């Protein structure tokens, strides 16, 4: 069983590395959105520092969401997804492998890049650390829940925007807790409660989302 999981993860990472531009585009989108906000609201450091948690989290959320369509589309188009659905291995496990690979190439770079962007927003150092930690705990939930949306809209016209409409309301708790953690640490309060709840969201998503995604894939493929 773990052989199938490892194989799926390895395959997806290999495919992502062959199309490095896809990965890079997501990352650059994150950077550009985070750079647009100061241009819109003005360069005053105090205001930017207040806005930073929300803006960086929303930018990370949007970047993650944009990369979701890539998750199943290529496999659906060439028939690999059908083979995965028919495979004797549990589809839930194969989905978990794909989502993990997706998180490694879409979520993890965002986690690593966010503190650098936080410097543009004049954030203090502990806030940068909490930002990275909150994204580390929150982006798995974003990938997992987003996978459900991606699976539901496979092959549907206008699926890019439709995924956004379906998935953003479900992202709201993660956004609230993530941005709240960073904001709390910036005001000197403890971010522990927020980070714990973020971890809980991710664990709940880990437990339930792959199964829901597998059901959605069966609906889409048959």
């Amino acid at each position, binding site marked *: 069983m773990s052989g199938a999981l490892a194989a799926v993860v390895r395959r997806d990472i290999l495919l992502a590395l062959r199309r490095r531009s896809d990965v890079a585009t997501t990352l650059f989108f994150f950077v550009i959105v985070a750079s647009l906000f100061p241009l819109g609201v003005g360069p005053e450091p105090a205001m930017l520092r207040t806005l930073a948690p929300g803006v960086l989290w929303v930018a990370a959320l949007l970047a993650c969401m944009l990369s979701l369509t890539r998750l199943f589309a290529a496999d659906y188009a060439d028939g690999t997804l059908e083979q995965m659905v028919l495979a004797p291995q549990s589809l839930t496990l194969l989905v978990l492998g794909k989502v993990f690979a997706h998180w490694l190439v879409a979520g993890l770079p965002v986690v690593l890049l966010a503190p650098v962007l936080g410097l543009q927003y004049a954030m203090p150092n502990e806030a940068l650390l909490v930002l990275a930690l909150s994204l580390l705990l929150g982006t798995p939930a974003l990938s997992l829940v987003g996978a*459900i949306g991606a699976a*539901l809209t496979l092959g549907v016209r206008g699926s890019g925007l439709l995924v956004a*409409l*379906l998935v953003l*309301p*479900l992202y*709201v*708790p993660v956004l609230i807790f993530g941005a709240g953690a960073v904001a709390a640490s910036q005001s000197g309060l403890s971010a522990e409660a927020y980070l714990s709840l973020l971890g809980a969201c991710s664990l709940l998503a880990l437990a339930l989302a792959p199964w829901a995604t597998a059901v959605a894939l069966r609906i889409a493929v048959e």
Partner: protein
Amino acid sequence: MLGINWFKYSSPPMFYPLAGRMIPWFYTLAAMFAVAGLYISFAVAPTDFQQGEAYRIIFVHVPAAWMSMFIYLVMAAWAGFGLALNARLSAMMAQALAPTGALFTLLALITGSLWGKPMWGAWWVWDARLTSELILLFLYIGFIALQAAIDDPRRADRAGALLALVGAVNVPIIYFSVRWWNTLHQGASISMTSAPKMAVTMLTGMLLMALAFWMYSIAVALVRVRCIILERERRSDWVKELPEVRR
């Protein structure tokens, strides 16, 4: 129960005439409850000591909010039945309930704004309940949009059902996270009327209006499900022979 095989009504040609017979009854009940509720809300309920007469909009706002949440759960339940039992009619019922639920959510948001302006001086406040209602509206719209975007009706049914169930699981999480966000970020003292000891007349008025909205929702959902049945079953013989189709 009573020796009737109730499951026969899960077939569209059996359910269509039954729904047609039930609709006038539910409209009548809705009208009766609405008259009683509006009478109590305008004539019987006392003037509020803090808010004057403007508070009376809660007799529409609170029942609409209750219905918006209740209809979401009922919609998710029907969608779940359709998914689990592979029943077309259950999925059609979920599809029929969605627009009514969305409209009640919109009504709750708009009446909330109309209440908020005299109370708090602002058309919109990021109060926990209003924000959760807004997200509920997005969940409804997502459900409607997903079903509209998928061409194959059975696939649309199943995909929508999964979305409704995932949303139903998420609604408590969203509500509590928004409530926490709101209590921690509360700026000016915006306190919703806590009044758990509401005057009995006010509570009765709200309950009657809630019943009115409930009967209305059932009636409207039955009308809509009949339309959906006609659309989806239009190629079958029994539809072609209906008097309303033949003319």
